[in-house]
């Protein structure tokens, strides 16, 4: 098993390389050097050249690519727009995104899975119908509009909660709520259908025939079988949550990775975009490795394959 995990992790290296290369090539399709993009139009050419030199924009396309990779390993990649080390900038921004994302992820995981299980157990009950209606409704309202509505009500109308910036715990409430409301519909619906699917299997009938109480049937036999699709959705949702941070950070003006990425894309700040892409892809890939491990641990059939 551990050998398999190491193998999977090593496999990430070429994958990440491909991702970086892909983003680099797409970004390089746009014309213009950093100086032209960042400095005023009237700047003399010498100043522009000096600027380009200072941020590492020299040589051919491939030179720049290898330069960037070299910079990655020495921990020194420079942003085109500020000339700062990107890692330094990410050091303050990433924890911000991570803390919002973690809060949102944990809360929506708990509520979403709980609602899904409850509405599966009490299929067609009042609770189930309500959850289903809310799930369909909130799956249709885009997260930015939810954010707008929350701001309109809690910040503008009631004046109770801050609508932008970071600092206190109160700043977390609206952005985290937005992300949670965006995640719950899918989660609760998937959990519900996974549970219902598990509950309709033959082995559930066997468990009942053995004399298991309904509680035991649900929490032992059905839930373990339903856990695989739920974990799959949760872990792939991790990436969506981080991706969704671009929109949420923009609305609530949170200086995190999302906002950093967005402005970098608009300024054609190639190294920043590449580094952010690397970071987000890396997190996503780690989540997928974790998912494989979960599968191997829960499903003995898959586990047996990796033991050899």
């Amino acid at each position: 098993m551990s050998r398999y995990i190491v193998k999977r992790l090593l496999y990430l290296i070429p994958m990440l390389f491909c991702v970086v290369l892909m983003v680099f090539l797409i970004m390089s399709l746009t014309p213009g050097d950093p100086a032209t993009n960042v400095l005023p139009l009237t700047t003399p050419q010498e100043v522009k050249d000096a600027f380009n030199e200072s941020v590492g924009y020299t040589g051919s396309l491939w030179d720049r690519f290898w330069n960037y990779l070299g910079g990655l390993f020495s921990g020194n990649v420079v942003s085109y727009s500020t000339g700062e080390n990107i890692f330094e900038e990410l050091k303050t921004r990433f924890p911000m995104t991570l803390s919002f994302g973690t809060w949102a992820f944990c809360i929506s995981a708990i509520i979403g899975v709980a609602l899904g299980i409850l509405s599966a157990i009490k299929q067609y009950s009042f609770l189930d119908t309500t959850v289903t209606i809310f799930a369909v409704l909130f799956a249709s309202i885009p997260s930015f509009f939810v954010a707008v509505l929350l701001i309109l009500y809690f910040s503008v109308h009631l004046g109770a909660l801050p609508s932008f910036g970071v600092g206190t715990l109160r700043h977390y409430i609206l952005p985290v709520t937005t992300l949670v409301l965006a995640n719950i519909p899918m989660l609760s619906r998937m959990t519900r259908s996974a549970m219902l699917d598990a509950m309709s299997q033959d082995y559930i009938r066997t468990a009942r025939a053995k004399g298991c109480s309904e509680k035991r049937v649900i929490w032992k036999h059905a839930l373990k079988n339903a856990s695989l699709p739920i974990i799959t959705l949760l872990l792939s949702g991790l990436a969506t949550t981080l991706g969704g941070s671009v929109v949420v950070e923009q609305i609530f003006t949170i200086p995190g990775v999302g906002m950093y990425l967005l402005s970098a894309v608009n300024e054609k700040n190639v190294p920043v975009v590449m580094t952010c892409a690397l970071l987000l892809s890396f997190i996503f890939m780690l989540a997928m490795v974790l998912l494989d491990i979960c599968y191997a641990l829960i499903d003995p059939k898959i586990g047996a394959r990796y033991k050899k």
Partner: protein
Amino acid sequence: MRDQKKFKKMIHRSRDSLFSDVVKRYLRNPAAVIGGVILLVIVFVCIFANVLVPEELVTAYDAGAMLSPPSAEHWFGTDNLGRDLFARVIYGARITVGIGVGATLVSLVIGAAIASICALFKKADLVIMRVIDVVTCVPSILLALVLLAIMGGSVLNMMVTLTIVSVPGFVLRIRSVLLGVVDQDYIHAARVSGTRPLKLVLRHILPNAIDPIIVDATMTISSMMLSAAGLSFIGVGVAPPAPEWGAMLNYAQDYFKTAPYMALFPGAAIALTALSINLVGDGLRDALDPKTGK
């Protein structure tokens, strides 16, 4: 011979009754019917927008009536430049629905083609799956941002971007449906009897896998619309002055205190459209496959 004819007739009849069964099941689901009606109205609005409201109103600045709240003259009020929001929301339907439907259809066709290749040819499948592995590791929002930044924001570029971003997902989902069908005995039979790959796919495989694909595509339309609106909202999507709903919400951000209706109407329009499509999708899934779902 006569028996064969009779047999064909029987198959035909059972297929007809199947279709009418689907319609019957769909109509028995109130949520799906409501969604369908709303969707029909929205499609109607898209087609006859120019009959409902003169097109000039979309960009006509009325300096005398900036940020005026909803009234008899301006049903949804006016924005910061004095443009009639009702007209903009109506014409916005064309853009948003157009992007959603267009991008979905194109990526559906491309995705189905690639998925068919995967399902038929083992070697091509290996290569394609490796490529998709890499592509899906890049968060789709990042890919969309980068693509839009290069191409610039326009309706067409938005459609291209969303198509590129959603093709891998389509390939994966359609492929898994097709692989289920390809393994059936009747496909083996067709293969052994020398049916050519293209005919095999078009005549035998796709028709038997069409139900989940239809449902999937319906749901994709709404998620595409939401993505398009989201990208426009953060300022990288459809460029002004086009009345894209997400972009309209973006301008509205500066006027939350004075003119909240500027945000409410376009936002509600997005939500209502996505909702109707999702309801139709859910209804179709339950009607096409009564076993799954509830």
